[in-house]
């Protein structure tokens, strides 16, 4: 059920912090560009800033309201993200619809039937095999099944994880807000420091644009993100757990960049979508979060269990 976000004492502190981040980011971009307003208004950076000013507050509002509002936002990401992956991997439409359907079902299972959450990947695989069995089209079916599975694990399943963690853990909402904001900051800081410092390439054969300077930015962004939202850090998290969280967020962001890079290169396709202005699409905006979220969740659980 949707809730009044103002009833949650965490809402306003988080909302104002996110808004302040957006304003500071916008000011930094304007100052660094030093262009006339008319030229700047037509630039990619302006489109990105505009996009952030829409999705930032929208995200905070949706997760604090919860219920079907948050579900709608998650549905939008699953539907658009899966569709973009389908185009990147040239997946047949019948598999594509199943991927989207599987993604939606995953969200529902994560929210309403958590006991069956572990069955999702295998259940999806079984459902996928039904496509060639029932249609009788087996030419290229193994490639279609494999690529659709990659799409499921890369896009749909992590979105289900987000819903799962938010509903299963008492600090799920805090974790979601902290990780999402920190991943976003990590990406932005990587872009800024990577452009400023340049330096040696991290994995030139996988992603020729990623540098060690950018990776350092990932770490700085993750640390600033967690520090900025310290108000949302639950008291049961130890300092060691928070430190590990920062490291895993930075590591996950770098990993996601490299994964996104090799996936696009493997399929020799770059899908340009206009869903999020200034970005290549929904997938390129959320891919870091999709990899980082489950990774950092299990890292945190492990540290809390081992260290306390």
């Amino acid at each position, binding site marked *: 059920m949707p809730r009044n976000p103002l009833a949650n004492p965490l809402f306003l502190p988080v909302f104002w912090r996110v808004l302040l981040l957006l304003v500071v980011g916008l000011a930094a971009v304007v100052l660094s560009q030093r262009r006339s307003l008319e030229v700047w208004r037509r630039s990619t950076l302006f489109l990105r800033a505009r996009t952030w000013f829409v999705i930032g507050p929208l995200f905070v509002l949706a997760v604090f309201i919860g219920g079907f509002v948050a579900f709608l936002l998650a549905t939008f990401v699953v*539907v*658009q993200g899966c*569709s973009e992956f389908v185009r990147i991997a040239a997946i047949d*439409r019948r598999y*594509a*619809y199943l991927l*989207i359907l599987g993604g939606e079902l995953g969200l529902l299972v994560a929210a309403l039937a958590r006991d069956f959450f572990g069955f999702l990947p295998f259940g999806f695989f079984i459902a996928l095999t039904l496509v060639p069995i029932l249609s009788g089209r087996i030419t290229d079916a193994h490639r279609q099944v494999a690529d659709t599975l990659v799409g499921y694990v890369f896009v749909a399943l992590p979105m289900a994880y987000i819903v799962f963690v938010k509903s299963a853990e008492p600090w799920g909402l805090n974790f979601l807000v902290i990780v999402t904001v920190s991943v976003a900051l990590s990406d932005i800081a990587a872009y800024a420091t990577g452009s400023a410092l340049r330096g040696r390439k991290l994995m030139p054969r996988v992603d020729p644009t990623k540098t060690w300077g950018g990776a350092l930015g990932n770490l700085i962004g993750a640390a600033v993100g967690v520090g900025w939202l310290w108000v949302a850090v639950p008291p049961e998290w130890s300092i060691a757990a928070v430190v590990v969280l920062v490291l895993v967020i930075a590591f996950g962001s770098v990993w996601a960049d490299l994964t996104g890079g090799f996936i696009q290169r493997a399929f020799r396709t770059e899908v340009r979508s*206009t*869903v999020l202005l200034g970005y290549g*699409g929904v997938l390129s905006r959320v891919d870091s979060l999709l990899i980082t979220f489950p990774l950092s969740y299990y890292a945190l659980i492990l540290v809390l269990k081992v260290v306390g």
Partner: protein
Amino acid sequence: MSEREQSQAAQGGPSRRRGPVPTWSWARTPPARLVRSGIQYGALVPLLKFIAPFTVIGKRNLGKLKGPAVFVANHQSHFDAPVSLAALGGRIRRRLVVAAAADYFYSSAVKGAAASLALGTVPFVRSGGSSRESLQFLKDLVGKGWSVLIFPSGTRGTGASGFKKGFAYLAVDAQVPVVPLYLDGLDQVMPKGSFIPLPGGVVVGIGPPIAPGHDYNDLVRRAEAGVAEVRTVVKGWEGT
């Protein structure tokens, strides 16, 4: 028969007979328009923004329109008309009809009624003698202040050239401007032959109004060039 004669024949003479082509005039009555507004604002536009989030470029060109106009667009998908309606905005949409293939959308009464009510379509006979009646009917509507959205390629997936002249007869004879639109991305969302959309982003480019002039062929050429120009702008914008 010369073009002017063809056009005069299309005007149907003083009797202005409707013939066998139904006009579905109830769909343009105030109650039906109210229902249509509700459907479009309450369901169609939000649904489109979810399935095919669209970005509109060149909307300021619509500010130059002072009366009815003929909107021409490339045709790729069944989503073209709804996305165009959503992109043009409420001010234009309120008095806009969509010329829809009579043999497809009006093949059954239920389908025709649904399209007329939800999208404001009117049946347009694409070939044969009744096509002149359809054209005349559209001219009557333009005379009453209605704008017309038409896909002059005739069928889906034919690109932004090879326009048929029907829209030019309409614009020249009624002396209303032609506004070129270019829709990009809908061939990925729902191409010809598919019946379930695969979501994705869409860009709608709106070009500056083109004066009708007095030459049908010239207007067809200028409209094709206008749509091609908007296409260049849209593709350039997507590359940023």
